[in-house]
């Protein structure tokens, strides 16, 4: 440890410690946000062949948890009546088929492709109806009133998903996911089906027109610029204040150390 003690006594050791602390804080803050993967809903024409193929897929990938007839088991809920929208949401976000049961099934790289998703949805829809996959125009953010959407989002969604859709924590390991990767179709499907801990917003309570407004708000918020520089995860004044205090005061401490450190000067009689 001798080298460390020697290093510690160097004049620049203090600056190095402060800089290292700031760097660590910075790295912790740097949140990576990879680009959105697109998963568009396929058209809704259903044939008997699709249902048969969907049944085969179901037997293969889903029946071990959801039961041979989708009636549900102790580990997984019944799928009768959940509808094509629910299947499309769960499968296109990669949540289903699930890897392992836990507090919450996370979004991941999707396992079944568009065609297989459509067939599986056709099979589940044939069991007991339920909400269908919305049409492309129904979820087009360009036709939504984002001001109204913002109002509804702040009253009913922001408490869990944050005002900018950054997500947030719930109880017992559950969480409201960030909305940055959700496609317009997936946002609609989530509202109408209420996946996992999320409550349901049916079409008679929040109309399809209002849902489109909410989709417009969520997608527009993503492209909003951050006039102050970094959005700091857009989680609000706590993060902003923390960064201001740590970085700002850190720089002040360094400046104060430099100003007050005494510079050796040669004396006259030396």
């Amino acid at each position, binding site marked *: 440890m001798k080298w460390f003690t020697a290093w510690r006594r160097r004049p620049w050791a203090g600056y190095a410690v402060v800089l290292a602390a700031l760097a660590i804080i910075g790295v912790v803050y740097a949140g990576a946000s990879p680009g959105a993967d697109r998963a568009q809903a396929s058209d809704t024409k259903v044939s008997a062949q699709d249902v048969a193929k969907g049944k085969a897929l179901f037997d293969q990938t889903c029946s071990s948890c959801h039961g041979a007839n989708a009636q549900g088991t102790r580990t997984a809920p019944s799928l009768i009546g959940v509808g094509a929208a629910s299947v499309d949401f769960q499968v296109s976000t990669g949540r289903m088929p699930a890897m392992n049961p836990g507090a919450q099934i996370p979004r991941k790289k999707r396992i079944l492709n568009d065609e297989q998703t459509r067939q599986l949805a056709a099979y589940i829809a044939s069991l007991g109806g339920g909400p269908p996959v919305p049409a492309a125009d129904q979820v087009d953010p360009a036709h939504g009133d984002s001001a109204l959407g913002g109002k509804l989002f702040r009253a009913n969604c922001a408490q869990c998903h944050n005002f900018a859709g950054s997500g947030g924590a719930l109880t017992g390991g559950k969480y*409201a996911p960030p909305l940055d990767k959700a496609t317009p179709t997936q946002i609609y499907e989530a509202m109408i089906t209420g996946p996992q801990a999320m409550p349901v917003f049916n079409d008679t*309570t929040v109309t399809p027109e209002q849902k489109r407004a909410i989709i417009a708000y969520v997608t527009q918020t993503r492209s909003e610029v951050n006039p102050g520089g970094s959005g700091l995860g857009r989680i609000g004044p706590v993060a902003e204040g923390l960064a201001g205090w740590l970085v700002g005061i850190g720089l002040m401490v360094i400046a104060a150390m430099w100003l007050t450190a005494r510079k050796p*000067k040669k004396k006259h009689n030396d």
Partner: protein
Amino acid sequence: MTDNNETSGATPEDEGRVPKRVIGTPSPVGTQELLPGDEPEQGGTGYVLDEKKARRAERVAAAFFTLSFVAGIAFIVFYAVWPGHVGNINRAARSNYTLGTAMTLILLGLAVGLTIWVRHLVTTKEIVQERHSISSTPEDRAVFNQYLQEGSRESGLGQRRLLRRTLLLAAAPLGLLPLVLLRDLGPLPEKKLRHTAWKNGTRLVVDGTGQPLKASDFNSPGSIITVVPEGAEDNLDEIATGAVLLLNLPVDQLKVKKGRENWHVGGIIAYSKICTHVGCPAALFEQTTHHILCPCHQSTFDALDSAKVLFGPAARPLPQLPIGVDSQGYLIATSDFHEPVGPSFWERGRPKV
């Protein structure tokens, strides 16, 4: 009355040890002296400069002053030629960057240049000013004491008890006057905290759109929506107390409290959205557990069991709004809340059981 002006104890040098150095401060060894007071008097400048090093420091400081000048010109150019900040909120980011960076460089260049100047080029000798004792001299104290006793004797304060006591009596109410001012913190809020805009027959309308809800519209299990009293959709004062969380719960799992049998409509149930702890919007609803969470301090309420507190600092359940259905099938309140909504206040009293 002894004055001890000598510094007590031994100096570190006497004890033969050097105090521990704090990280970031310069080493005590070498050419520098922290206390030049015990040096031989020289008069005039205390230090001479190494001319080579001084010239280098001068150039560095000058470079920073030049940087400050260039940044100052850049600020004017950015402002006048390439503003970006006028009329478009999205372009304000650009002007924040350009003007902010320029202003930072102006001030930083000046500050760094001046600091280098002071640290490397100034040759003023350091002087030490001795601190003198804070207490008065014994003579001054004795004179003061004498004056005080003479004054007491001459005015008769010591002998004339009646005068002394009535004087104190006169001063006593003066000391109590600030307490009277506390009265002006009122008036008390009267009934305002106990009542909301809800009354029998008020329809529940969706917050944000103002559309009334039929029980048959709000029919999906696991639904939630924020509703406000009809007629107060745009009245923020009323919404601040009257915001309600409407839930659709499985009616067979509902634990209905005695006396509240008619407060829900087939599992559709309404709770105040305002947390009973400090008044945040408690609106995080988990469909799977039927828990309502408050985002501020994690108070957790059981929606199935009259919003009983399961966890967290909230002291009381969320107040429940009795609801029913009118002749056209719309959801209505059947009365106001039966207890004050929101956080506790002084004269709230105990909750009715």
